[in-house]
Structures are given as C-alpha cells and as structure tokens.
C-alpha cells in the first residue's frame, strides 16, 4: 500500500516536472508545477511531516503559485519564443543533467542498505513537536525571518510600483 502510494505520487511529481519542461506556454508550466507541489505534500505526509504537508499546500501550491499565475496573466505572457540563446546550454547542459541524475541515483541506490526504510506512521512529527523547537530554541531566527518577509513586501511594492 505504502509502496503503491509512493509510486503513484512520485510518478505524478516526475510527470508534472517533465510537463513543466516540455510545455511552451507559461500558464501550462505553472499548472503542472502545482501538480508537482501538491504531490510532494502527499509524500511529506507519507514521511510523517504533517505540518509541512499542510504548509506545502498553503504556501507553495497556494500562495506562491497564485502569485505566479497572477503575474503570467498580468503580463499577458504568450507562447515562448524559439530563440536559442546559447548553444552551450544544450551541448553541455543536457548531458550534464543526465550525468548528474545517474550519478546521484547510483550513489543513493548503492548505499540503500545503509539507509533506513520508511513505514507509514513510523515517525510522526506533530505540530507541537515542531513548534516546541521553533518557538523555544529557534525563536530569534523565527523573528528574523518575519523581518525578512516585511523587507521583501516593501521591496516588492517598491520594485513593482509604476514610476512617474
């Protein structure tokens, strides 16, 4: 059951990512990225990270992707132009990516016996576990990130404002 769920949602992730790569219209890429992020939320749940699964759906596939689709619609982005900026990206990039994925997969699969197995309900991090660490040991970094978000909001407004 667990293995089937993993393969269904892992397959959805990879299919969505490949669809992002092959679609020419940005709105199609954005929608396939939402599929990837929602399937990742399910994988987080399978790994016992219930808070992160909820945060993934709310923050990533909710807030960030809505921002992306808004910008795509606002700028009326059409189909991608078929310009070839640099040949090097194709010549070095695609074999490099293939080498990267096969090298990483080889290393992970050869070390499989040293890594544990994940079972459902094996290790569940509840929200209270997470908040205990976040609000007691890491209170200062937490507050600093709130300042960071405030600065980011101000920066976004200042950058996107129409100059007159």
């Amino acid at each position, binding site marked *: 059951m667990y293995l089937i769920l993993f393969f269904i949602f892992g397959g959805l*992730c990879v299919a969505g990512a490949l669809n992002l790569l092959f679609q020419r219209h940005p709105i199609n890429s954005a929608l396939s990225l939402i599929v990837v992020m929602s399937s990742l939320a399910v994988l987080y749940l399978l790994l016992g990270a219930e808070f*992160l699964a909820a945060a993934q759906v709310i923050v990533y596939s909710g807030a960030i992707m809505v921002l992306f689709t808004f910008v795509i619609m606002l700028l009326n*982005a059409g189909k*991608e132009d078929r310009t070839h900026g640099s040949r090097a990206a194709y010549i070095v990039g695609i074999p490099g990516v*293939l080498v990267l994925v096969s090298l990483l997969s080889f290393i992970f699969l050869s070390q499989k016996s040293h890594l544990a197995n994940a079972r459902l309900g094996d290790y569940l991090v509840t929200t209270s576990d997470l908040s205990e660490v976040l609000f007691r040991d890491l209170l200062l970094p937490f507050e600093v990130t709130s300042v960071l978000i405030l600065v980011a909001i101000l*920066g976004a407004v200042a950058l996107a404002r129409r100059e007159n």
Partner: protein
Amino acid sequence: MAVPIAYYLVLSAILFSIGVGAFLIKRNIITVFMSIELMLNAVNLTFVAFAHQWHQVGGQIFVFFVMVVAAAEAAVGLAIIIAVFRTRNTLNVDAVDLLKL
C-alpha cells in the same frame, strides 16, 4: 511494505535535475523562475527524507525556513520580472542582455 529512503532521495535527484534542465533550456523568464522553485522543492524533499531517517526535527525546521524564504524570494523576483517587462517589453531572457559583453 516499506519504502527505502533511497527511493525518496532518487526521486528528489530526478526532480532537481529536471529543474536544472528547465533552467537551462527555458527561454521565458517566468518559467526559468518556476524551475528554481522546482529545485527548491526537490531539496526540501531530501531534507524531509533525512529527517525521517535520523528521527530529527531539525530537517523539518530547515524545510520550514526554506519555505518562508522562498515565499519572500518569489514576491521580490516577480516584482523584478514586472519591472523588467515594463522597461523592455519582453519576457525572453535572451532579450535581456545589457550586462553581456
């Protein structure tokens, strides 16, 4: 039935590589930005998988902070994209080459 953590790591490696490939191949600045988000998500999956492996909360805390910073980064990045579109009237990354020699 149990799933080896290695499978999760392989999945995240595949997602990261697709993100790198999309970053190199795509010509639309918004799609390039989306592939960066895909790479961030792939790394997040690795963090959660290792948090499960060693039964530590620290990995999940890391993912939480990555999410927060990604949200801030998306807001600023999209504002920059809007500013670029206003001045150059294009979303093609090849047309934004003022810094190129």
